[in-house]
């Protein structure tokens, strides 16, 4: 089978359960958003898939191959990790050369072009980079390795608005010319809403949501207006949360909105609002 299959994976750190019997699939050539609050288990999951840490239970398959300790399976994936694993004193251009040794399809010329677009000086060493430029450097590598699966853990950490914008455009350009599987884990939810096709939400080590963005965005809506009207409208509905301001009330509801009701304003929940409501404990 094509794609990445995560089957019943669990991971414990001492007594703490980081991942609780997780199963999910990353299909070929789709862009995924992997969302979850701090400590939800996103990085643990990505690190298990890419063989940096080991699962206590369960297995991961890449195009049908077992991923654990399997070079052939691992060579199809690249993880841009939120941590820096490069030696401090190494120059960026030398890291490019080393990367080429491990990833045959690493495109040196493309990496240089990207570095130029981001104004990244490849004669610098890793320790000379600011937080933002360290992210940019890691992104340049991730976009140049040309593996069928690329995981981006906090890709825009420390990037200014201009560079984030540039990154999203470059990512989409590359993806629309030669599609590959991209998994983006980020807290800047609004920014990826229009880019991702599928959404996966992890909460306390479990998957709470995994579906297409379109379905997900159709899941909930908000109703606001005078409190009494809102209450009578929501009487038979599944409410996730409410906000009150004086006599005004907003209710967040799961399901599809009914026909218009006079005096009530019905609006869609955007991704961020839905996410916050679903992951508040």
């Amino acid at each position: 089978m094509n794609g990445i299959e995560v089957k019943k994976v669990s991971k414990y750190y001492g007594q703490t359960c980081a991942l609780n019997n997780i199963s999910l699939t990353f299909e070929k050539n789709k862009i995924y958003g992997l969302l979850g609050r701090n400590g939800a288990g996103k990085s643990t999951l990505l690190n298990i898939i890419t063989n940096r840490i080991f699962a206590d239970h369960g297995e991961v398959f890449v195009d049908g191959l077992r991923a654990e300790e399997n070079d052939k399976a691992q060579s199809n994936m690249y993880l841009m990790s939120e941590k820096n694993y490069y030696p401090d004193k190494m120059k960026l251009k030398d890291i490019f050369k080393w990367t080429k040794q491990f990833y045959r399809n690493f495109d040196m010329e493309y990496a240089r072009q990207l570095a130029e677009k981001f104004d990244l000086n490849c004669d610098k060493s890793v320790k000379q980079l600011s937080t933002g430029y360290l992210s940019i450097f890691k992104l340049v590598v991730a976009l140049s390795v040309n593996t069928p699966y690329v995981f981006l853990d906090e890709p825009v950490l420390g990037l200014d608005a201009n560079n984030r914008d540039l990154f999203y455009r470059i990512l989409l350009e590359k993806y629309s010319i030669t599609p590959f599987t991209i998994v983006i884990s980020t807290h800047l939810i609004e920014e990826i809403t229009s880019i991702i096709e599928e959404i996966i939400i992890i909460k306390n080590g479990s998957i709470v949501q995994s579906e297409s963005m379109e379905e997900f965005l159709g899941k909930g809506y908000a109703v606001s207006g005078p409190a009494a009207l809102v209450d009578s409208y929501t009487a038979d509905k599944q409410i996730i949360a409410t906000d009150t301001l004086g006599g005004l009330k907003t209710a967040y509801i799961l399901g599809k909105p009914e026909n218009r009701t006079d005096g009530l304003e019905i609006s869609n929940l955007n991704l961020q609002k839905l996410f916050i409501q679903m992951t508040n404990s």
Partner: protein
Amino acid sequence: MQIKTDLEKPIFLQIAEGIEDAILSGAFEEGKQIPSITEFSITYKINPATALKGINILVDAGFLYKKRGLGMFVTEGAVKELQKKRKEQFYMNYIAVLIEEAKRLYITESEIKSMIESGFHK
């Protein structure tokens, strides 16, 4: 043409309507090629599948057509057809909303009529 992710309207519909507007205004001319999926995707920072879905609505409706290996083109006569379609939707999209708000504000029918007249003569 602008894409807003916080609107009630799904992005693919915003793309379709944006292209319709561009055809109506003449920015995308009849018989001429429109930008590629990749260009839409990069410009509006949207997933290419979303751009394709929006464009396909207009292909199915006959306002755009595909030339194999070349791209998408605006159908001859699309402007007229679009005007017809938009006129049919005009009452629901504009007049019904206008009357609803007018009722909330106790604006009378004759007041609205004179507003419309003065609007035309500005």
